[in-house]
């Protein structure tokens, strides 16, 4: 069974030969430590920062090489910018992305991080020209990753969830203010991004993606960031349309969110194909999720990302074994951390997670 077959069987909620392993992201300093090479360019986990195809090839090739070194079963790649886009750089070193987010370069991780916004008033959204999903080039990263990685490894494409996207586009304070004062604006913005995503899902599925990951948090440590009725009225209907679009192209959609998802688990399980990150530090027990929703949800996780930074190797081994014990039997589980390998994580611990996954993840699970 090759890596892609292993992942695809897992996505069908069946047991493959062993538990597949991957990460949704690895920060640049760790990728450099893993590959022994310098990253060709800065990047962003949230958005597109360049349309230069040579830089894109370098960025994607570097990531593919890193994932191959780790022998991961799935390569997770994001969207490229459309071909003719020119990033707007500001004199203070910030950059404005395609979505009106002002990005600042984090020197430590060499990643561009949303910091501010061009949307200062609700009317600014009416004047803003949203990106066109039919512009050529969005799926370049997926196509190139597939070409570089070959046919025997799974490729997943990471898109941004409309709620999280608009939350970042407007900044959290503007989002909340307008959510209560201009609810139609927030609803419209989320619908626009969902429509964009539906077209993008079709493109990346055609370009070779085996599954789609919709990234962006719905929850914080205490629970959902917005009232449950907002999920029912706005977030979930738009999520469902994206899931339908993915299924229509024969691919599954996995929802990533940090935080305590317990209050919205039932709603999510009725819509999406799978969940990541099942955040253990926010009180999510992957065993309980498996027990209640294991017959319909693919589970991806959930070695705590904070523990990768502060715990000992032995503790990570035990945590990983526990994760496999609770989530892997019966299939439908992909082992990963509860977020990404951030540069604060100890590489030794990250590798211990992978080694433990290989050692104890062979079916039938006996750990």
């Amino acid at each position, binding site marked *: 069974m090759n890596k892609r077959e292993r992942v695809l069987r897992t996505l069908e909620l069946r047991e493959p030969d062993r538990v597949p392993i991957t990460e949704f992201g690895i920060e640049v300093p760790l990728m450099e430590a893993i590959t022994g090479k310098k990253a060709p360019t800065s990047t962003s986990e949230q958005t597109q920062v360049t349309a230069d195809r040579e830089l894109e090839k370098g960025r994607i090739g570097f990531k593919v090489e890193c994932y191959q070194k780790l022998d991961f079963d799935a390569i997770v790649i994001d969207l490229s910018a459309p071909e003719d886009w020119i990033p707007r750089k500001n004199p203070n070193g910030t950059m404005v992305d395609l979505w009106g987010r002002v990005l600042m370069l984090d020197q430590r991780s060499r990643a561009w991080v949303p910091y501010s916004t061009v949307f200062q008033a609700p009317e600014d959204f009416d004047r803003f020209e949203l990106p066109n999903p039919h512009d050529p080039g969005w799926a370049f990263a997926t196509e190139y990753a597939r070409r570089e990685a070959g046919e025997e490894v799974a490729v997943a494409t990471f898109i941004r969830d409309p709620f999280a996207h608009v939350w970042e586009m407007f900044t959290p304070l503007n989002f909340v203010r307008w959510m209560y*004062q201009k609810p139609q604006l927030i609803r419209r913005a989320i619908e626009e991004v969902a429509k964009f995503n539906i077209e993008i899902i079709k493109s990346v599925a055609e370009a070779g993606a085996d599954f789609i990951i919709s990234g962006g948090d719905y929850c914080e440590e205490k629970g959902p960031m917005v009232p449950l009725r907002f999920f029912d009225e706005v977030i979930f209907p738009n999520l469902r349309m994206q899931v339908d679009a993915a299924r229509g192209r024969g691919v599954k959609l996995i929802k990533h969110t940090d935080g305590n998802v317990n209050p919205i688990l039932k709603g999510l399980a009725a819509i999406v194909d799978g969940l990541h990150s099942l955040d253990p530090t926010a009180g999510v027990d992957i065993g309980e999720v498996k027990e209640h929703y294991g017959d319909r949800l693919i589970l991806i996780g959930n070695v705590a990302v904070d523990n990768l930074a*502060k715990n000992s190797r032995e503790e990570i081994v035990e945590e990983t074994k526990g994760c496999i014990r609770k989530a892997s039997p019966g299939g439908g589980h992909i082992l990963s951390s509860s977020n990404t390998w*951030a540069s604060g994580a100890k590489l030794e611990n990250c590798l211990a997670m992978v080694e433990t996954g290989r050692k104890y993840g062979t079916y039938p699970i006996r750990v």
Partner: protein
Amino acid sequence: MSTLKDLILGMADVDNVKRHVSDALRSGEEPSKVIDVLNDALEEVGRRYESGEYFLSELMMAGILATEATKILDAHMAGGKRSKIAKVVMGTVKGDIHDIGKNIVVMMLRAADFEVLDLGVDVPPEKFVETIRNEGAQIVGMSALLTSTVDQMKIVIDAFTKQGVRGKVKVIVGGRPVTEEFAREIGADGYAEDAVEAIKVVRDFVQLGGARLE
């Protein structure tokens, strides 16, 4: 004034809240009474958030409304600058450019009638020291999202000691990787796991003059 509390708890229109405060002041209501109502409302919102009845967006919106109300109070005191409860310096530590949590705390502190000097993100220790000296702040709040930057908090506190300003300020720390144990280890005076707790700790600093860490 009970209606002002109801407006905030009900996530009312901003203009409605502002109009309500203006009308109350015009009809002779003491600004201190308005402040009391705002604090009462925020405490209730905090209770509801902690119990899971309210969500983050409601906590934030209540803070936005209370902040707008305090701006009306400031404008009303046209004769001079209205004195605030205390002056707080806030910043995300050097090497860290994440600010969502810090911004929520800044907004909630302002809503609770504190004067806040927001230094932004990636703030070096010397900037914290300089601001304490120049502005006479009584409280410093530091935030970090990343495990890799959280140790900067100790560097800042050590800089306060070295530069002779440690005794002038109370220090509160928070952020995803920060724990109460960590706060104690680095010599902070207080720790908060969320914005609601941060307001309580800072209020205790002022009212009790002491630290909450045990």
